[in-house]
């Protein structure tokens, strides 16, 4: 019995270490770091019949007729050459650059008199997605509250949405 107490039991851990190294090698080889992707989360509602807020007197209270004819802040994006952003208009006013667009949009968003129920972006069918993203970037960075309830529609040929130049 005394002899048993003095015995050393050695568990061989070398095979376990070998296996652990193999597992480690597998995980290192299959590891692909995820790219730094972000996203814009938004509710894209189907475009509805619109009333231009610049041509319609704002109503004090919402009425049941709003569902049928929503007051709309319209942004038009026309493509220039190679699908790049050519011309931007906000409520029929030409805009020069993204900084001005942001400034004008914040003016509409923070204006207590001029209210709108939907923001409609009419986009040239040939405009590249990256150019559209620049505009969505501006809508999503508005202060104090970003505009994420958007509707998209395609710019028809009669509205200047034509083939790329």
């Amino acid at each position, binding site marked *: 019995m005394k002899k048993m107490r003095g015995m050393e039991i050695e568990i061989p851990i070398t095979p376990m270490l070998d296996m652990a190294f193999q597992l480690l090698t597998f995980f290192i080889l299959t590891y692909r770091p995820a790219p730094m992707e972000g996203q814009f989360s938004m509710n894209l509602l189907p475009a509805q019949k619109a009333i231009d807020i610049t041509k319609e007197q704002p109503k004090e209270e919402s009425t049941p007729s709003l569902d049928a004819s929503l007051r709309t802040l319209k942004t038009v994006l026309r493509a220039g050459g190679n699908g790049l952003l050519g011309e931007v208009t906000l409520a029929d006013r030409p805009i020069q650059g993204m900084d001005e667009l942001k400034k004008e949009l914040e003016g509409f968003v923070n204006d207590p008199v001029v209210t709108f129920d939907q923001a409609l972006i009419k986009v040239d*069918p*040939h405009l590249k997605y990256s150019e559209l993203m620049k505009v969505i970037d501006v809508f999503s960075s508005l202060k104090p509250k970003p505009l994420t309830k958007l509707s998209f529609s395609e710019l028809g040929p009669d509205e200047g949405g034509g083939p790329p130049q």
Partner: protein
Amino acid sequence: MSASMNNDVRAEPNLTPLLDVVFQLITFFMLVINFSQDNFDSRIKLPVAGSARPQDDAAKLGDERLVLNVDKDGHMIFNGQVLSADEATQKIKLEAQIARQNIKTLKGKVEQGEALPARIVIRADRDTPFAALFALINTCQTNGYQKFDLKAMNGP
């Protein structure tokens, strides 16, 4: 004498700390590895947008999501396969039907016009023309999807 000394000396390095470190490394890689890659398609070059926010982990786990990869020609890529416009429409319709069926099984009936709770994640190439993207968004909206996540890179 010296020969017997040499035979008796056994070098036994303590491997337990080494094993601990290796197991910790394995645990780290097991936690960060992502086999599914979230339907990530390396052919898609996402546009860059500074205010794009990283995806919320809680939302990632909680929400049902349908990831649509769109290449620069406007074709939808689903599970690595390039689909034509008709095939893409059929695929979205099928996914919407499955989503409705799942909701019906779990909670109750979903009306035909009612919005689906699932999110559409659009990973479109930076050169995709809007017309192709709009057609896909329209198809999704027609089938009851209203929540969209548009993917972009945080930096160049």
